[in-house]
């Protein structure tokens, strides 16, 4: 089965074609990050407007890249949620109407299920069951995955998502939006031992997390090291970034370890924007070796939002006979553990 996937849940317009026999045939993405950077964060109305302008040109491009005639797919999958309602609406209304015009089935896909299954697009995919760490600007969740649609929440952040904490720490350090990757870049040059930030909630049992305190800690540490002009020297900046990153990564690693031990599973997958973080991958590699387990993640461009993961997730459900009706389905809030199993 060949499925066109459309992703418009936030600030990237992604379109891809996945074929269950031939794999990924085409994948294109337009990122609005630069536009939103001028505003210091995602402006939902502007995101929606940009999706409207970009979606059809990207559809042309993906069919061209795949070497396919326009419309040469068996079904269509679009992101229904969670995400920004206005942004979701663009992909959902265009995608659903397009499927009607083609007289093909369509399905609304859960954005985080897309992320969770993204490592399946790699050459060496995990197999069920596994533990998934979904870690992005909007989510930080540990999920027990027994199969597609069989998700049990093991723990989650009770306040800021890890990626959000990265962005906020960047703001505290005066770095530009989106600051998360810049914090990681600075951390590369930093001394990870000069400052020690707390590891929130690791002394408590369970797999819930909390990251909101780390931004205050970052700000206080930065303020303690400002010169008379309020500036922080480059090395100190890098050292603070490293201490922050180490605290987040360490916390995630501790919770992931608990999740592996709790489930007895031997596979851990990480997905979402923060799963591209180099230090997180290193730290988790070390941890899984000790646990005699294995770590899986997607290539960097499939860690962030993309159409390929939506096409893939949609394809799995469509092949199992699931599809949506003629309604345009958007679910800005949609708990992962309410999904139907295959």
């Amino acid at each position, binding site marked *: 089965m060949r499925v066109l996937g459309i992703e418009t849940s936030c600030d990237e317009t992604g379109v891809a074609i996945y074929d269950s026999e031939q794999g990924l045939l085409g994948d294109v993405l337009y990122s609005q990050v630069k536009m939103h950077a*001028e*505003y*210091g964060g995602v*402006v939902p*109305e*502007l995101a*929606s*407007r940009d999706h*409207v*302008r970009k*979606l*059809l*040109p990207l*559809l*042309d491009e993906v069919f061209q890249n795949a070497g396919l005639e326009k*419309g040469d797919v068996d079904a269509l999958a679009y992101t229904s949620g969670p995400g920004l*309602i*206005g942004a979701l*609406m*663009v992909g*959902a*209304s*265009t*995608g*659903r*109407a*397009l*499927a*009607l*015009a*083609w007289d093909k089935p369509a399905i609304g896909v859960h954005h985080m299920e897309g992320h969770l299954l993204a490592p399946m697009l790699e050459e060496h995919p995990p197999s069920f069951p596994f533990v998934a760490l979904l870690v992005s600007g909007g989510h930080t969740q540990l999920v027990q995955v027994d199969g597609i649609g069989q998700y049990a929440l093991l723990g989650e952040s009770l306040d800021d998502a890890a990626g959000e904490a990265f962005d906020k720490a960047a703001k505290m350090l005066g770095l530009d939006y989106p600051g998360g990757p810049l914090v990681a870049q600075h951390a590369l040059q930093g001394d990870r031992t000069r400052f020690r930030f707390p590891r929130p909630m690791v002394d408590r049992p369970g797999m819930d997390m909390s990251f909101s305190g780390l931004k205050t800690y970052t700000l206080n540490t930065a303020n303690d090291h400002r010169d008379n002009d309020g500036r922080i020297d480059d090395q100190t900046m890098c050292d603070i970034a490293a201490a922050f990153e180490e605290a987040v990564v360490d916390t995630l690693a501790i919770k992931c370890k608990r999740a592996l031990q709790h489930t007895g599973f031997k596979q851990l997958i990480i997905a979402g924007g923060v799963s591209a973080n180099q230090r997180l991958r290193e730290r988790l590699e070390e941890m899984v070796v000790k646990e005699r387990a294995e770590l899986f993640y997607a290539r960097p461009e499939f860690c962030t939002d993309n159409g390929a993961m939506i096409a893939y997730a949609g394809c799995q459900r469509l092949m199992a006979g699931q599809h949506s009706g*003629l*309604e*345009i*389905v*958007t679910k800005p809030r949609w708990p992962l553990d309410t999904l139907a199993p295959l």
Partner: protein
Amino acid sequence: MSNILALDTSTDACSVALSCNGEIKEDFRIIPRQHTQQLLPMIEAILADAGIAISALDAIAFGRGPGSFAGIRIATGVAQGLAYGADLPVLPISTLESLAVSAAKAEGADNIVAALDARMDEIYVASYRIENGLPVMELREQVAAPSTFAVDAEGYLAVGSGWRYFEAMPESVKRAVQLSTETYYPSSKSMLVLALDAWAQGKGVSPELALPVYLRDQVAWKKKDQQ
């Protein structure tokens, strides 16, 4: 007459209209927040009733705004999706012109000021002179505070939800207009009148150029250096 499907979701009303083999049919419903559930089934039903496939249409028309941002994006998305999928041109139609067509037909007025509630104490407004049943724009479409807009002649019929701000409007406007006692919504049927005319004039565009007209382009977003 050409085969054109028109759709509109710019207000609480949701409507689809079809011109097929010289006959015009409309399905018009007031369904706040239900547009996403009902629009495509309405389209499928009106096409099935007429026994015409999407691919047999000549063009798709849609209410391109001004109106609720979410609403006009639903219409835009559906029009883009249908037209892209069936290789059809698109006719973007003004919601304010649509109001003017409805009122001109129902009340026989020659001069019309159409206004829609734009929320945030503003209105979308434009005025038209009716020639041969079709509106010719005089006051260009704009988003304005009710107290700031002006019409330069008298004898206008005032239609649309924007007139709920009548009390806040300047005396000159209050003198120049007569409030219609009827409630008009932008509708796909009146859009079809405009679409058939636009189609005859060769005004169809390719689907990726079928874009909303928001009028309000500065709301709650400020660049960092302006914050």
